[in-house]
């Protein structure tokens, strides 16, 4: 109830701001401090979202009108569901994430790597399996009914190349030719032409799953780090210079793809900078704060990015689909145990903190996280204390609305395929189709090639 009302008032505030500014509200001077940061109470977010529209209008009369309209329209559309895609890069070992502790075959195939029979917590949905000791945070969320496990997700005719298999997952089809990502094609249909934040890559590079054909998408390292500081350029000239980035991005590319990429980057950078202006740290105050503690580690990019994402969602920014890499290296050909444990632990602990953050902000009903890897690993260990490339892998859906019930079953070690790999018991294209239909409300058949032929698992409750 309360949510509905505050959303209404936010929309109104933004609309009113744009309308009044259009009538000539007193201009906000360039350099006037913007309200900074989230981690404020909800009312502050609302005021700040409104402040964004005002400041944009007042800051410069040169900015494209579409900007305020885009923000107002995105806000007016109401809070939308968000899908976050987290990639375990390298092919994460499914036989470690949920391991068949009592199976003698497991100990025979993994004489060195098998985890102790009592390690980790039992997996309530299948008594044969236990959680990897480093995945305690996921076990906790699973206990709360917020994790859906896919213990054998993949596709028929598995490809054991990292790049090919990863590409299949990114484009949402077993096709080498597709050049747009499955989330990108969703945005091409459901997104808007003036909102790069709708497809957000939380990396210094664009995540291929987000590659679109038409709609703008963004990649940023963090919402508080998107400035264009330039030595000895300030004041009014700086404002004009930042506008000029947009002007360079508006020069026609004349059909040249490289020029189109360069102008597109300039255009979207200019747009994104406006969208993220409220997160610019001011006077030593951080751009945002979090209501919960995230894990700290030497490699803290992942928790920091998730914290920034929660803050952006909390501020009402129009983010729809997000993609980022999990920490860790999962291509564990050698010395698997430590490498894998480190990556899994930071990943799971960060995802737990993110979930708690969303809950504290009242956003948990709106966000679903999908964790995936390009394949699992060979059932039999290799001689280097590691494992080679395999087939079916383990995936997770995390969120308050996740169904909490396993999709497909643990394929077992007694019926490996001819390469000695786990067989898939669910298909990633069926999963994608269900996410598109039941979570994002999109037409899967227009996005996933051959969607009709894949069974839809139950992904949300």
């Amino acid at each position, binding site marked *: 109830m309360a949510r509905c009302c505050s959303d209404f008032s936010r929309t109104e505030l933004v609309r009113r701001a744009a309308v009044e500014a259009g009538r000539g509200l007193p201009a906000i001077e360039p350099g006037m401090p913007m309200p900074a940061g989230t981690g404020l109470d909800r009312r502050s977010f609302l005021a700040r979202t409104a402040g964004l529209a005002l400041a944009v209008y007042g800051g410069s009369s*040169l900015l494209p009108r579409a900007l305020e309209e885009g923000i107002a329209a995105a806000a007016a559309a109401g809070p939308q569901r968000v899908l976050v895609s987290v990639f375990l890069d390298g092919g994460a070992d499914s036989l470690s994430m949920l391991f068949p502790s009592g199976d003698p075959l497991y100990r025979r195939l993994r004489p060195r790597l098998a985890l102790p029979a009592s390690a980790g917590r039992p997996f309530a949905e299948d008594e044969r399996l236990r959680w990897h000791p480093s995945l305690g945070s996921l076990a906790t969320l699973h206990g709360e009914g917020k994790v859906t496990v896919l213990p054998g997700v993949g596709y028929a005719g598995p*490809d*054991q*190349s*990292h*790049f*090919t298999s990863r590409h299949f997952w990114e484009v949402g089809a077993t096709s*080498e030719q597709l050049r747009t990502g499955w989330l990108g094609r969703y945005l091409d249909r459901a997104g808007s032409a003036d909102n*790069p934040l709708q497809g957000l*890559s939380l*990396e*210094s*590079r*664009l995540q*291929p799953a987000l*590659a679109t054909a038409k709609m703008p998408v*963004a990649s*940023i*390292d963090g919402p508080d780090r*998107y400035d*264009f*500081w*330039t*030595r*000895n*350029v*300030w*004041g*009014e*000239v700086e404002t*004009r*210079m930042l506008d*000029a*980035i947009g*002007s*360079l*991005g*508006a*020069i*026609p590319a004349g059909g*040249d*793809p*490289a*020029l189109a*990429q*360069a*102008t597109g*980057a*300039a255009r*979207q*950078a200019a747009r*994104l900078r406006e969208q993220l202006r409220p997160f610019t740290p001011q006077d030593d105050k951080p751009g945002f704060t979090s209501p919960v503690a995230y894990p700290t580690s030497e490699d803290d990019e992942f928790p920091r990015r998730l914290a920034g994402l929660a803050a952006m969602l909390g501020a009402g920014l129009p983010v729809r689909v997000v993609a980022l890499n999990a920490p860790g290296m999962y291509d564990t*050909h*050698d010395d698997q145990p430590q490498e894998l444990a480190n990556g899994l632990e930071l990943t799971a602990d960060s995802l737990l903190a993110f979930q708690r953050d969303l809950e504290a902000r009242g956003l948990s009903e709106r966000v679903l996280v999908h964790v995936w890897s390009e394949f699992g690993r060979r059932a039999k260990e*290799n*001689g*280097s204390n*590691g494992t*080679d*490339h395999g087939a079916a892998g383990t995936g997770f859906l995390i969120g308050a609305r996740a169904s909490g019930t396993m999709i497909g079953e643990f394929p077992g070690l007694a019926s490996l395929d001819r390469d000695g790999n786990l067989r898939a018991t669910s298909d990633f294209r069926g999963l994608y189709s269900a996410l598109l239909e039941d979570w994002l409300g999109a037409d899967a058949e227009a996005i996933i090639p051959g969607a009709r032929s894949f069974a839809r698992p139950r992904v949300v409750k």
Partner: protein
Amino acid sequence: MSVAVYTGPFGHRQAERLLWRAGFGPRQGEVDALAKLGLDGAVRSLTRPGPEKLVGPKPGDDKGRPIAPGDAWGHDHLWWLDRMARTSRPLVERMTLVWHDWFATSVDGVGSQKLMLDQNRLLRRLALGSFATMVREVTRDPAMLLWLSGTENSKSSPNENYARELMELFTLGAGRGYTERDVREQARALTGFASDWRRGAGSVNFRFERDRHDSGMKRVFGASGRFDWEDSVQLCLRHPSHASFFVEKLWGYFVPSAPDPATRRLLERMYRSDFQIRPVVEAILRHPVLYTGPRMVKPPAVFNAGLLRARGRGIDTLAWAWLSGESGQRLFRPPNVSGWDDERWLDTATFRGRWQVANYASRPYSLTDKQAASLPSEPKALVAEAIAFWGSPTLRPETRAALVAFARRAMADADAKWKRTSYRFLTANALRQLVVMSPDYQTS
């Protein structure tokens, strides 16, 4: 029939594009000097250069101390960027970058900057030589042996890592005529490499050990034999898919559109006779499409080195190392073994990274109040100053017009006496930034 050769005029524009595609952009005056040589002379000056000279100030850190590329964090990046910026053999250096992307090895997995530099020297030495020798040497290169588990691959416990990438990424291409069984059999053929771990020194004493090698019969691509690692490489090079893989991949580093079938066939024939790299590169650099076809986005390392070359500035800050991550190409740290995705260099994050690179590149020359009086106030003259600052790169008229429009607006804001002076240097600094961030300069 031979490969088509560009026959149009070879002037300033063509020479400028060639210097960016086959090198790291011009130093002041280099474009016109190259144009005078004509197409053939220009290409030969790049593919058959004299002994290397490094021109300009020696590299140092922020305090002017010599760099330590084998040890200090980020100094490996500085070391190579310095070669790119100062070399008199830009194509050799550019080809070294091509091979680094092709046999993409990361210090993240190797754990030794010294071994990475050894590999880099190998790639440079063979940059325009025999690809057969290149694959052979890379296969037993210590950094590669560590990177793709070569020393972990033994008779008693085969490891498929290198075997798979040798075929998929280095010589044949994914799904182009090999099976999962071939991967396993090739892994057996490649067994036998070993090294020792010495405390404080890391991996040392790389060698082939007969005892670790699986000398049994293998079946690869339908042929049987007691193959070893050299056979494994030969089998890939003689595979019917190899020549077309090599030609198309190499072509793609210089021209963004695929070669037409006739050109590809001719280049394959040229290559197949003796696996020589230089003639294929020469043919590509003389091909009409390089001069008349679409543009390419400059890779971030090329962009960065190009800014330094344009200014004749040496390496004097560690900033280039961390900025390289922001702009998307940290040398010696490709994202994975398939190298960088050079179809998607520019997005909102890497655009900002390049902005920072440009900002650092012009930093020592940044204009202040002191120079304001000597700067023009006329918008067009301010734009001309900024373009000349970077060695007069070619910009399209519409891009120039956008820059003039910015300068005009900025100077029109100067509604007080102090502003009329100060806004000249503020605008001039901003223009220098905008010139190299323009779509025209980001591409070649």
